[in-house]
């Protein structure tokens, strides 16, 4: 029984998988045709960000097809698995037509379809019991989603009532901090509490982030279980007509205690500095409205109106003091007031999840490495370790990539000795693809280990 020694799939082995030459595994139908790039050359930057021509360029040369396929295939073998073949792809074309329930038998088929349709957007759906393309051949009830990554969607528009720097589709580094907090809180909860290991955070291209959890266990969750995870994570409740949106019990659940620590690190910078929550009367009124005590509200209001320019951190102290003294004066108010400051902190910083996206196994979510039609930016992965440094304005656009590629080739004339590089390897997309590859590699390592375990088990019999 030396399973242990055999069990570990070495990194080398997996590295090798990524190195494999196209022609070994995948039909080399695209031996680096540079012509379109060159012919576009200078004019690439003149085209609209979402022009089909640009997208064609992108899908043919920059889209990291191989790791992408390996991810969706969830197998160390390059043969397309059912997981890949039964996956729903949904394309949004340039006239905004949706084509749902697309599916492909091979990576090449998928690649050709991308080049043919040049979709403005690719969405990924669930993996079904049969191929989605064959959907119409069976009764509706016999077409069943069986698995999908657990996904999260956090959109800045859900922060509009507390965000003051931008609104709607705009983002800046100030409000991006909301997303940073969201990533930190959700990431650690999913790893530590639920034991998930393979998380991919992706910039949605404009004003939000997505998270893909690729663990087998996560993919197999049913809707009820997904819902349980979402409500475990969810803290902000109530529609536009409800002032106080957070009401947590006196004793915080260990998971929320941890979140509270993270919130504490960001609350001052978000609330005092970037969002002007306590500097503008309109904004501080919203905070006051949360306090369920008219006396406290009134005293703070008059105090702040007298000195509106008082330092926001001082105003926050005022608020805590006012609540403290209200409790001291009337101890029976303790229950209602004691944790109000804590709950305000949650309301102004805790992540706001789009519940429907996560709880429905067959809900679509935009694929990583799409190009956002409005901003033209590539939806790149965000490494969680350095998520604080991510700038939503930094991901490249297609014209930028074309330019980078030309610059690289000008500096590095092709030579026989050097290995051929993929187009994305010559551009700033490289770092982003590498983050993605690490994610895929982690998943494949698990798959490999599981396979070994199973085969050694069957040998035992």
């Amino acid at each position, binding site marked *: 029984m030396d399973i242990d020694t055999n069990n570990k799939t070495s990194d080398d082995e997996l590295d090798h998988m990524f190195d494999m030459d196209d022609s070994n595994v995948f039909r080399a139908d695209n031996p680096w045709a540079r012509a379109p790039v060159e012919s576009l050359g200078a004019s690439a930057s003149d085209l609209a960000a979402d022009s089909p021509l640009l997208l064609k360029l992108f899908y043919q040369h920059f889209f990291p097809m191989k790791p992408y396929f390996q991810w969706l295939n969830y197998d160390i073998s390059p043969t397309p698995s059912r997981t890949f073949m039964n996956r729903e792809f949904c394309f949004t074309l340039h006239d905004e037509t949706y084509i749902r329930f697309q599916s492909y038998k091979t990576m090449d088929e998928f690649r050709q379809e991308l080049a043919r349709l040049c979709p403005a957007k690719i969405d990924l759906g669930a993996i079904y019991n049969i191929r989605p393309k064959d959907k119409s051949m069976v009764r*509706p*009830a016999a077409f069943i989603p069986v698995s999908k990554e657990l996904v999260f969607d956090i959109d800045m528009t*859900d922060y509009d009532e507390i965000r003051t720097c931008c609104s709607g589709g705009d983002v800046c580094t100030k409000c991006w901090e909301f997303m940073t907090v969201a990533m930190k809180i959700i990431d650690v909860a999913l790893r530590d509490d639920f034991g998930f290991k393979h998380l991919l955070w992706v910039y949605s291209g404009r004003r939000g982030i997505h998270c893909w959890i690729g663990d087998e266990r996560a993919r197999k969750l049913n809707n009820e279980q997904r819902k349980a995870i979402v409500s*475990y994570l969810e803290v902000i409740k*109530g*529609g536009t007509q409800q002032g106080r949106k957070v009401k947590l019990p006196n004793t915080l659940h260990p998971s929320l205690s941890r979140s509270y620590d993270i919130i504490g690190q960001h609350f001052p910078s978000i609330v005092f500095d970037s969002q002007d929550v306590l500097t503008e009367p309109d904004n501080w009124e919203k905070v006051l409205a949360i306090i369920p005590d008219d006396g406290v509200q009134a005293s703070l209001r008059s105090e702040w109106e007298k000195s509106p320019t008082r330092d926001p951190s001082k105003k926050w102290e005022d608020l805590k003091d006012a609540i403290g003294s209200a409790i001291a004066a009337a101890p029976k108010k303790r229950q209602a007031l004691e944790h109000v400051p804590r709950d305000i902190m949650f309301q102004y910083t805790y992540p706001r999840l789009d519940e429907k996206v996560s709880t429905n196994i067959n809900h679509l979510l935009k694929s990583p490495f799409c190009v956002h039609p409005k901003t033209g930016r590539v939806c790149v992965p965000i490494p969680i370790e350095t998520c604080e440094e991510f700038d939503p304005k930094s991901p490249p656009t297609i014209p930028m990539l074309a330019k980078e590629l030309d610059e690289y080739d000008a500096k590095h004339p092709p030579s026989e000795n050097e290995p051929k590089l993929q187009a994305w390897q010559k551009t700033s997309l490289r770092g982003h693809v590498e983050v993605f590859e690490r994610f895929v590699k982690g998943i494949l390592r698990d798959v490999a280990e599981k396979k070994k375990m199973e085969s050694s088990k069957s040998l035992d019999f």
Partner: protein
Amino acid sequence: MFTQERTQTRKTRQMLASGARFTYDDEPYPTRLNFYRDPPALEISIEEFEQFALDRMQVLTALQTAQMRNLPPDQMDKAVGDAIRNQELRQWFLRAECALFRYRFEKESLKEQLEFLEKQNLTWKKVSDDDKRLLKDKLKASSPFKAQNVDDETFFEVDFERVCGLVGKRQVYIHAGKAFVPLADQVVLVLDEFRERLAQALEVTGRALPRMDEDNRLMPVLNNINKQYLGREFTTSAVAGEIQAQDVDALKIHMPLCMEHLHDELRREKHTKHGGRMQYGLFLKGIGLSLEQALIFWQTAFANKSPDEFNKQYAYNVRHSYGMEGKRTDYTPYSCKSIIMGSAPGVGDHHGCPFRHFSAPNLRAKLAAHQVDEFDTEDILGLVGAKHYQIACTRYYEVTRARMIGGSPDTLRGGSGSALASGQGAGSEFRVASQEQIEHPNQFFEQSYKLMQQHKSTAAGGAGANGDQDMEAAPLDPTVKGRYTYRKVGGPSSIVNHDMEM
């Protein structure tokens, strides 16, 4: 001999039906609780099967209603029998059965519970004392009410997927995918086991059912049971007749607060999120907006969307809710209960029940905008505070409708002896009597609308030629109390026989 056997079987069946304990030697069901692993090995006539099944449905429905009302159900011991083929119904059945099982389990004595558990060979991994000490604070913070004394409490370590209810409510400590469940929450684990086994059994039964299609004795019964549950919806002709898209604004005065709010926000934002579209769209359907008119209404409402955008993004949903797309379910308008208990409005949402989902200041402002005086406002907010949202809405109806027909709110609220109730005759018919309440937004609308029509006709010269009809139209159908579902009867276009299309 034969007769005796028959008698014996009948006796068994009766005991089964009454939920009583078996006293036979072989004891097929030794405890009153049952995981339904083994089917009853009895011969059952079709009539009896139907009776059992209906009884069971009745129990489950009653239990569900009781659950929604937060009342302790009292008559729970009834028949066995199941007949579910539809996936959705199966889910419903599963949930309902689990609720029934939970109720029964918790009602049993501890001894009975243990006895039952022992028989099922349920083994859950116990958390060791060392681990318990290590995790003490976290375990305590996770279930502060149930596990005060962590040292004395037994904890089980199970996959978090098995205790979704506890996870969702953040009432259990989870680490690395394992949930640490205190003994006090054991019922959740038992229930999970129960659900799993029943789900498997249902799956097997579901697969067996197609074969039963050929059996023309059993199938009609099964199909009918199905409808007995779903078929409670009754049809009402739209009081205002066929409505045109442009009529909606004028009809706003008859809408309950929830719908009026949705309407106002729709006009203001020129958009409404999905929850609002469903709640309001189905309501409009219920008051007589045909599919064609609904498409016109929503397209005009979403003024910022080009016709092209509208067709691509929203038209499908509108058609879908009229049963013209997808699985072709002809959706019925939401009742108050489903609005109150349903998915709460999230950020940017306007759906929901104002009495349930508005903060007090916002509700106050809303009431003030409808000239509800201070006294009534306090009254309504008091009801809201006590979580009587529908009664609050009922009170709102009374206060505002009384003004609408020119009576003073006092006379309406005052109950018996009011001028309106006894004298003119118009108002009393349409008052929501004290023992009744608003159960459905469409009921609110219809009552308000009829009240106005009647008032107009009395004002115009008394109960004339067509008065009688109107007079009798209003009272609610008492047999369907608590589960109003409205379905519009429209022109030929809206009559779709779904069974035929399946």
